[in-house]
């Protein structure tokens, strides 16, 4: 089996080439224990060759996760050949990585990409001369147009079969070479000859990650000191300088630039898009478009269709008949209300239109009543009589199970446990795909880098990237795609921080909780909903500041020295592929945890002891369930938060399945089998059971604590590391608890003047917060990756 490693800078067309070389034969995963994506594929047309797509990197330095992952692979796995793709329009910087790859003692073939653009702009790259100067195979390709790709692949396979190492022919100035030779001699026999130059350079550069790959580490301090004194610079800079000097020395002979000074199309686009005055309005427009399409309109419809249609009652094919059906339902409700009023002997009927929240007064006379009778007698409208009705999966399964005379518990398990769980996983996918389509396009066309450029100033203050804006924005709709959108952030620390904080923003499923609390305890006061968003944003900012100073995060340096790639039109197939890969990875990696936890909550809420007998319960017997016992057992934990009764605890737990469940659960516990979305029916009961301070603390806790299982699944998938997953969920819950406690205690103190032990604790917590926010902090200089990499 021939192993080909595909290496190159970010934005050089590597993914396009990889897709073209492998077709659909790809395996996407993560490098063990880290958030970096790993892609492997079978080479088309060569049965016995596989390609490993290494992360896009600029250098083999020890400072970014991607670079460490890539070089550890190259050194440990020793691929048979490195296919180094370089961007022909940006050849100087791309060759910088090539000079490093050629020192590894592995055959190297360079594929100069985007040759069509180079030629179009009137520039010239002399492939033969480049090959001669670099001492390795060089071919020209255009990955986008598919030109030269097969030749490049064939050449790579041929090179691997020859098994001839590519010797590094580039040389640094003689002083540096002398020192390197001395270090190479010190390495002895533990390092194979062809890798000696690489190890010598890394030792000279004081690269602390290289030591983990060596058995015996020779002492090279004398050499380092000697060369540093001689050249008055540190060794890392000396080597980097030498590489670029070498590249500059050969580039003039190999390339001819005719386009210098001319503005390209990309330059002109950028002139407008990141213009001082237009940049922010354009940014706002793009974001509004992304939001409207992927959250409120297309994405929202898709989610509704998946949740209420496919995994709900059913849906009308192409929506034909939906409006007629809804009108019929409305008319039926109206008739029922009229009849109720008539039966009670009223002269007029007050008819509530829940959707538009208006009350209509109808005078009851014979004709109105008889018409209402007529409608009511016809029975409740059946959706299947309108248009083409496609029943939902639960409905189909239920009738099937009924026909089989299936036991109740099994039916419950399948319908309320498994199908509901699968629905929770798949229900988010359509919306996610819409969002991922946008993200893939924005990334591929080059605008995503500009988003970071424009927003960096605001977000870096609290340890986030400018690109964190998009996950947060999407998070207001749904946290699940929000978390998945963090994939676009290339810095590991920023990405993890974004994953941890995105769900603090109230998502649409939390709105019913806000409506419930605001309606029940605050008479629908205007400030409750905005304050929820304020709490969410404050939680993100404070978390950013606190977390970046913790041990978990302080390890990783985060320089913001970022390439702004040229704008270009991505291909449809690449965008679609990227969209699908992300959607699929969510289903695969997040699915299990979501499914299992949904089944667990189903089991605990539908089974319990009644009159000393353990049996399956009716939905209305929730207060006898195992879940209620759990609620009872843990309710005391929430006493300091003001809502230490088991009902609230149970509601908070069912909220983990989906946040909007909180309202429904309260409804059931107060004796209503069904309540409106904002729970109007139970407002008075809820108001009687807790104080305003407790209610607001309950709201804050549910907004900030561990999100729903689907979002937790997404966190698990994106963190790709059990430790980080638990750290994220644990942090969210602890923060929610602390903030809710402070809210309740301080609100109680200010409204009643009661000062107790709780108030003291709240004061201590506040002091702790302030300390964590204000303590001094120094950016680390070292990538803290060794522990992660070795834990595989």
């Amino acid at each position: 089996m021939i192993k080909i490693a595909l290496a190159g800078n970010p934005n050089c067309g590597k993914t396009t080439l990889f897709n073209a070389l492998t077709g659909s034969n790809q395996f996407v995963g993560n490098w063990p224990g880290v958030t970096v994506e790993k892609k492997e594929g079978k080479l088309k047309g060569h049965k016995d060759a596989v390609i490993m797509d290494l992360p896009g990197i600029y250098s083999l330095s020890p400072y970014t996760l991607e670079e460490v992952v890539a070089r550890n692979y190259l050194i440990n796995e020793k691929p048979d050949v490195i296919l180094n793709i370089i961007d022909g329009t940006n050849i100087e910087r791309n060759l910088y990585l090539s000079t490093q790859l050629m020192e590894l003692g592995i055959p190297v073939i360079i594929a100069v990409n985007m040759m069509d653009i180079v030629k179009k702009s009137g520039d010239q790259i002399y492939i033969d001369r480049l090959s001669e100067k670099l001492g390795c195979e060089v071919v020209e390709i255009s990955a986008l147009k598919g030109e030269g790709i097969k030749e490049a692949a064939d050449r790579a396979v041929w090179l691997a079969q020859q098994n001839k190492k590519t010797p590094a022919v580039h040389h640094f100035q003689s002083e540096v070479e002398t020192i390197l030779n001395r270090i190479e001699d010190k390495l002895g026999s533990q390092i194979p000859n062809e890798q000696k130059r690489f190890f010598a350079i890394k030792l000279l550069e004081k690269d602390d990650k290289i030591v983990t790959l060596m058995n015996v580490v020779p002492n090279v301090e004398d050499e380092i000191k000697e060369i540093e004194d001689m050249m008055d610079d540190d060794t890392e800079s000396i080597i980097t300088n030498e590489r670029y000097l070498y590249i500059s020395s050969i580039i003039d002979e190999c390339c001819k630039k005719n386009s210098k000074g001319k503005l390209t199309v990309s330059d002109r686009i950028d002139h407008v898009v990141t213009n001082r005055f237009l940049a922010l309005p354009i940014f706002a427009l793009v974001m509004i478009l992304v939001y409207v399409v992927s959250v409120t309109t297309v994405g929202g419809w898709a989610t509704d269709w998946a949740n209420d249609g496919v995994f709900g009652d059913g849906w009308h094919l192409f929506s034909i008949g939906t409006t007629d059906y809804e009108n019929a339902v409305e008319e039926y409700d109206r008739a029922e209300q009229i009849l109720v009023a008539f039966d009670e002997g009223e002269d007029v009927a007050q008819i509530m239109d829940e959707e538009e929240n208006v009350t209509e007064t109808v005078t009851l006379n014979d004709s109105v009543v008889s018409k209402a009778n007529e409608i009511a007698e016809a029975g409740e409208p059946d959706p299947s009589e309108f248009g083409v009705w496609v029943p939902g999966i639960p409905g189909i399964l239920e009738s099937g199970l009924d026909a089989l005379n299936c036991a109740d518990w099994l039916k419950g398990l399948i319908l309320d446990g498994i199908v509901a769980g699968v629905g929770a996983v798949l229900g988010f996918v359509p919306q996610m795909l819409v969002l991922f389509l946008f993200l893939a396009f924005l990334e591929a066309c080059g605008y995503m880098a500009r988003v970071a450029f424009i927003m960096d100033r605001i977000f870096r203050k609290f340890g986030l990237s400018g690109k964190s804006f998009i996950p947060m924005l999407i998070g207001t709709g749904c946290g699940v795609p929000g978390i998945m959108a963090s994939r676009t952030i290339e810095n590991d620390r920023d990405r993890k921080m974004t994953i941890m904080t995105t769900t603090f923003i109230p998502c649409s499923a939390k709105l019913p909780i806000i409506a419930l609390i605001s309606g029940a305890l605050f008479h629908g006061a205007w400030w409750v909903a905005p304050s929820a968003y304020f709490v969410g944003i404050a939680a993100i900012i404070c978390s950013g500041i606190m977390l970046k100073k913790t041990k978990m995060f302080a390890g990783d340096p985060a320089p913001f020295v970022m390439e702004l790639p040229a704008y270009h039109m991505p291909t449809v197939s690449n965008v679609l592929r990227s969209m699908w890969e992300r959607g699929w990875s969510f289903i695969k990696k997040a699915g299990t945890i979501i499914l299992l936890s949904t089944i667990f909550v189903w089991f605990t809420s539908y089974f319990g002891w009644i009159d000393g007998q353990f049996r399956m319960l009716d939905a209305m017997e929730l207060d006898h369930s195992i879940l209620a016992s759990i609620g009872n057992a843990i309710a005391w934990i929430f006493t300091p938060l003001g809502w230490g009764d088991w009902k609230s605890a149970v509601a908070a737990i069912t909220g983990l399945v989906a946040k909007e469940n909180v309202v429904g659960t309260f409804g059931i516990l107060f004796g209503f089998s069904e309540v409106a979305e904002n729970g109007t029916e139970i407002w008075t009961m809820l108001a009687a059971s807790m104080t305003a301070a407790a209610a607001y603390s309950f709201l804050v806790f549910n907004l900030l604590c561990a999100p729903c299982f689907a979002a937790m699944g997404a966190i698990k998938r994106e963190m790709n590391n059990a430790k980080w997953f638990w750290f994220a969920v644990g942090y969210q819950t602890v923060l929610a608890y602390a903030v809710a406690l402070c809210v309740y205690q301080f609100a109680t103190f200010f409204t009643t003047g009661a000062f107790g032990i709780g108030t003291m604790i709240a004061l201590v917590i506040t002091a702790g917060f302030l300390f964590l926010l204000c303590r001094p902090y120094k950016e680390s200089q070292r990538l803290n990756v060794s522990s992660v990499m070795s834990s595989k």
Partner: protein
Amino acid sequence: MRTLKEIKCGDTVKVIRLEGEGPVKRRIMDMGITKGVEIFVRKVAPLGDPVEVTVRGYELSLRKADASMIIVE
């Protein structure tokens, strides 16, 4: 002694040397900002930071704090 941070948009300058050490310096150098290279300061982000420069024929953005590590002519 001027640093890149002080250079106005539209000016081209030559790098004399880089100050500091560690990952940020290495990263800046990896991206092609080394002794003697010419840098064209292209624009400043709408919120005043970071800046966009052209170096070795491509566009690079870096923060002003990092730009102040780069000593130019």
